[in-house]
């Protein structure tokens, strides 16, 4: 990269040296001068200069200029409202204008206390109001979605939200309606704002016009604590602050990590926290009693029972891990089971590996790419939503996006991603040639069967990504901390796992494992099941002993995201029961294993083995990305046999796990509208052949099972494929018939 040209700008007599082209607002900040803004937000694209709050006087320009629209030029002399009377007059008037119609309901408004309009009015506004006008009134609040309330009276038409909707998230659902005095922000056709990133507009709104319905009237800024932690709902690991009041998480707000999330959050990460207080949350150990279901027991008895089960099973234990445990929690479990009992057999929902560490880049590198290639069956936004925003940012910057999958720009059959990788590596591939020539190309694997990124690593190596700093590859795993859990499990012992048969005890760690059909199938073969889950519904029917699990907001520790970045989780609220590490350490003691109950100590123990001796304190609030690994020999590539393909009559079923699914989302009333409708997606060809049009009720059948769904045509879907969300697919087989009901 070339070093940017430096220019010197004088702001209110202070000199600042910045790279040419830096925004004036940032330049001023560097000189220690604030230029107040409302509509300016560099993450939303080019400035629009609408609010006129940032007016400054520039030497040599006769009129006041909107500071936010200017960039630093050499020798520029800027006078802000602090030193220029003209600018101050303009700014004062602007603020007064803005306040003409803004209601004085700060005591009622949720934004009150953390409101840019309030803050700037205090700092720059006149002390008194001169307003004797009747203010404009509207119906309020208007719920534009179950999670967001709109108050048009407070709106100052800064267009931040519509710009987010249009250019960042690209959903285009929040729009500015009408002209002149009737102008207003509205959702498109007054439909609910149903988009995966809608919640960001709450944070973007510089006034209280868009507020969260979940947080509505829950707390005021001086009554809350913000705990800096990391979202552990998906493998991106967005940095968040958990706002707590009186021991309860009230909301999740973003905490900008410029390399990971750029301050955006998906609605699942933002709104799903209320599952902590779900009605069927397990708060005490449960023991299965014949014919009576579960009976709550005390912790002493629970540990006795657990000890009995473990001793009885010996090494014939299989542990099903969720991939959402903390690194320390997984290590604690591994120490107990592998060290204490020699039970080395574990099931992870997905294979994790280090193969891609040689092509590691921060997620923000996607934005700077010129060519992004996504392979795999799943849409990126369902697996790792923020990655989708990074890709959109790249596209805005002119990058080309190639998706190779069942509904991509390059159509590929479901389950053929490994083959796609081989094709791209082949000399004849046009996309492969462009990838090879590009200095800033990104590969992304979004789907099952990536073998922890090994397939992608092989492709990257074949394309000559080694040594190219701008080129990288990402594997989007299915679980939030799969890599960390795998590393922790491996760190506890070197011994090989033998799969016991029969299984004496199945330990189900966490909710994802408890709702995994494969794990359920394993339980059929197990004599006993010990489940560690948060919710009653996940334990009923198969567990013999249930120990309460905790959520990521309730425990301390570390977690590793898809980039391989180790990030720090902090306990935002106390869990209703002791966390995993607390009882694991007591249980381990009974087996003669010394396991400290404190994540920091556990981490110190495993770090030399798993993370090169990184200290717990160094993980930090804004975690750094480890450097790229040396290119290492790749693990042997295995290809799963290709799934049976369509023969015209039978269609290939593509299941996907929607972003808004899972045990947590199911327990959040506000998010129900985001869950996938009961739909089957069909390609236009297949639908036409079956005389099915969008909205028709259809029956999807295979080998004796059938389910009724509504059809939706997807013009981009490959012919011969139908796509159904996991939760509606039930036990349909790989090939299905679709018949109009």
């Amino acid at each position, binding site marked *: 990269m070339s070093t940017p040209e430096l220019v010197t700008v004088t702001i209110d007599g202070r000199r600042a040296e910045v790279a040419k082209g830096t925004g004036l607002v940032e330049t001023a900040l560097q000189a220690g001068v604030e230029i107040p803004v409302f509509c300016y937000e560099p993450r939303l694209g080019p400035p629009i200069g609408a609010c006129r709050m940032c007016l400054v006087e520039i030497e040599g320009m006769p009129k006041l200029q909107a500071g936010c629209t200017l960039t630093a030029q050499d020798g520029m002399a800027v006078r802000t409202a602090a030193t220029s009377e003209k600018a101050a007059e303009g700014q004062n008037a*602007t603020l007064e204008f803005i306040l003409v119609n803004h209601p004085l309901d700060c005591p009622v408004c949720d934004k009150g206390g953390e409101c840019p309009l309030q803050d700037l009015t205090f700092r720059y506004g006149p002390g008194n109001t001169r307003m004797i006008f009747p203010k404009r009134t509207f119906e309020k609040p208007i719920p534009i979605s179950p999670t967001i309330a709109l108050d048009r009276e407070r709106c100052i*038409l800064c267009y931040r939200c519509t710009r987010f909707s249009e250019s960042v998230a690209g*959903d285009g659902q929040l*729009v500015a309606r009408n*002209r002149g*005095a009737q102008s207003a922000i509205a959702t*498109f*056709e007054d439909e609910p704002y149903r988009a995966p990133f809608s919640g960001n507009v709450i944070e973007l709104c510089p006034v209280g016009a868009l507020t969260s319905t979940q947080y509505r009237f829950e707390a005021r800024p001086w009554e809350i604590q913000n705990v800096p932690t990391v979202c552990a709902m998906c493998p991106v690991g967005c940095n968040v602050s958990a706002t707590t009041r009186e021991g309860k998480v009230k909301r999740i707000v973003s905490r900008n990590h410029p390399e990971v999330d750029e301050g955006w959050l998906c609605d699942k990460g933002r709104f799903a926290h209320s599952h902590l207080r779900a009605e069927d949350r397990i708060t005490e150990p449960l023991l299965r009693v014949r014919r009576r279901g579960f009976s709550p027991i005390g912790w002493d008895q629970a540990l006795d029972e657990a000890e009995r089960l473990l001793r009885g099973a010996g090494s014939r234990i299989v542990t099903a891990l969720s991939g959402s445990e903390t690194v320390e929690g997984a290590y604690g479990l591994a120490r107990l089971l592998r060290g204490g009992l020699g039970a080395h057999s574990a099931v992870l929902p997905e294979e994790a590996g280090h193969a891609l560490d040689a092509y590691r880049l921060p997620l923000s590198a996607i934005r700077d790419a010129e060519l992004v290639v996504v392979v795999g069956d799943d849409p990126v936004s369902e697996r790792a939503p923020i990655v989708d925003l990074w890709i959109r940012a790249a596209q805005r910057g002119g990058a080309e996006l190639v998706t190779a999958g069942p509904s991509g720009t390059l159509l590929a059959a479901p389950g053929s991603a490994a083959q796609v990788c081989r094709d791209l590596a082949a000399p004849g591939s046009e996309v492969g040639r462009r990838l090879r020539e590009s200095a800033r190309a990104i590969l992304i694997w979004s789907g099952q069967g990536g073998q922890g990124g090994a397939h992608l690593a092989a492709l990257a190596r074949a394309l000559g990504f080694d040594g190219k700093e701008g080129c990288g590859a990402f594997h989007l795993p299915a679980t939030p901390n799969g890599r960390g859990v795998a590393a922790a499990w491996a760190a506890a012992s070197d011994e090989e796992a033998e799969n016991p048969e029969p299984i004496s005890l199945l330990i189900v760690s966490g909710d994802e494992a408890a709702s995994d059909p494969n794990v359920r199938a394993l339980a059929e073969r197990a004599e006993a099941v010990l489940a560690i889950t948060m919710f009653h519904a996940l334990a009923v029917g198969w567990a013999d002993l249930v120990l309460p699990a905790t959520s990521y907001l309730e425990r301390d520790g570390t977690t590793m995201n898809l980039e391989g970045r180790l990030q720090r989780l902090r306990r935002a609220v106390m869990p209703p029961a002791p966390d995993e590490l607390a009882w694991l350490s007591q249980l381990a003691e009974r087996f003669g294993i010394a396991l400290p109950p404190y994540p920091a100590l556990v981490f110190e123990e495993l770090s030399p083995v798993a993370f090169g001796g990184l200290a717990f304190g160094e993980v930090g609030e804004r975690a750094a990305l480890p450097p790229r690994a040396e290119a290492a020999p790749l693990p042997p590539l295995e290809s799963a046999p290709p799934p049976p393909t369509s023969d015209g009559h039978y269609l290939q079923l593509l299941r996907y796990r929607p972003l808004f699914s899972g045990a947590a989302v199911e327990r959040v009333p506000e998010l129900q509208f985001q869950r996938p409708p009961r739909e089957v997606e069909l390609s236009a060809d297949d639908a036409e052949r079956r005389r099915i049009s969008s909205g028709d009720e259809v029956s999807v059948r295979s080998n004796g099972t059938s389910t009724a769904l509504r059809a939706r045509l997807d013009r981009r879907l490959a012919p011969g494929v139908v796509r159904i969300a996991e939760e509606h697919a039930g036990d349909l087989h790989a090939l299905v018939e679709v018949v109009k009901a």
Partner: protein
Amino acid sequence: MDVLRLTSLLAELPTPRTSLLDNLGRIRREVGPITAELSDALADHMNIRHGEVHEVKSFYSFLEVPVDALRVCTGPVCDCFGARALLARTQEHAPPDATVLEVPCLGHCELAPVATRGDTILPFGRDEPVLHRANEGPSLGLGQADGTLADYERRGGLELLRSLPSPERILAELKASGLAGYGGAGFPTGLKWEAIAAEPEPRYVIVNADEGEPGTIKDRYVMELRPHLLLEGTLLAMRFARATEGFVYLREEYATARDRLARAIGEFRAAGLLDGLSLELVVGAGAYICGEETAMLESMEGRRGMPRLKPPYPSRFGYLGRPTLINNVETLAHIPAILRAGGERWPRGRLWSVTGAVREPGCFEAPLDVTPRRLIEEYAGGASDEIGAIVPGGAASGILPPAALDVPLTREALREWGAGPGSAGLQVFPRRYPPLRLLGETMRFFAEESCQKCTPCRIGNRALHHICAELEHGEAAMPRPQVEEWLDAMAATSICGLGQGAPIPVRNAFRLWPELFAPLGSA
């Protein structure tokens, strides 16, 4: 039903984003008012997100109303001649399924009070309206309409296009003529053309025919009477700028002008004058702000017509980011005469719309330093009533008392009165029409037509309208010094001319009719 009719039309509609406004206009004319279903169908056809089409269609006043809606003009001149009462009466007697719409200006002020149903003009109060009353005029020659291209050629037209002067000569003549944009801002045309010549190709030429200023009807006269003259000027501009694509952005209300221009363009095409060039008619949909050149560009690119930040000016970053020459209709229409006579000898003049309380309202070409009294007496048949207030040139030009009747209507002379010639729309108001009402109506116009992008214009105009309305009831909404502060702030901090110009009539009234503002206290 509508969607079915749309499906057959859709296939014909072009899909580039720049065609959005045109497509919406066509659907409205051929299918019906743009409903949610229609807008969605169009969005799908053009591969634009539904919400964006929704944003755009709701920005314009007319896309959601039927073509045959009855539109009653309540601009200041019409208001003065009883448009409100007319509107009330019409609303009362209209059949229940008819749409009656109050619009801020229809651009037919000489027929005030006026309404339109679809493309038909309904001049209330006059049985036999004189549609065009114009003088011969040395530069534009509006006294005689050109029916066909042959008529135009017979009067010496097209000569310049055939023997195209060199760009250097064109520039020299333009500069010598001192021609300054007649759309209102008065930027020297020579400098504008010089700037565009320095920019890289490809370049575009756009004719600003979105004349929306209440009281200004001159461009309509040019387009209706001498469309070929305008086209020759436009083609000269395109040849000069070496632009192969040109556009005429016409306001929706000008149906006759639309037809005549379209016919004239057809004639030009048939005569081979457009070979290798494209000249398109873009029809607006009822948004005054789109007359602002950058808002017009946004509108043409298929977005909400909100002005862009300047700089960069359109001459550098215009239509689709390319250098673009934007000129007003009348400005372009003068260019053939300038080139024919030579810049020095060109009879400097401009076209004045004279409307209101005069016997023979119309458009008259007169010298730049003509006085209102001369315009009224010599050109417009004299005043029909005792003169109360005069507006020299469109809504944002100022409001003058009868004492100013003998002031030459030049930029310099009017500056002393705190006013300007603007778009030369002289409106004469009778004494019975209260100046405060006039001011209030003007501010209402600005408040309703503000695009709502920047704060000062968005809030300021609404507040000023409120103040005027309160003053009519003898109440003060705000002390005078504060109003003055706000006026300064609006002029200094608004993005475009609408917000910057809106304070002018208020300041003018403050200065020239201090007694009206007594309730506000002293300055």
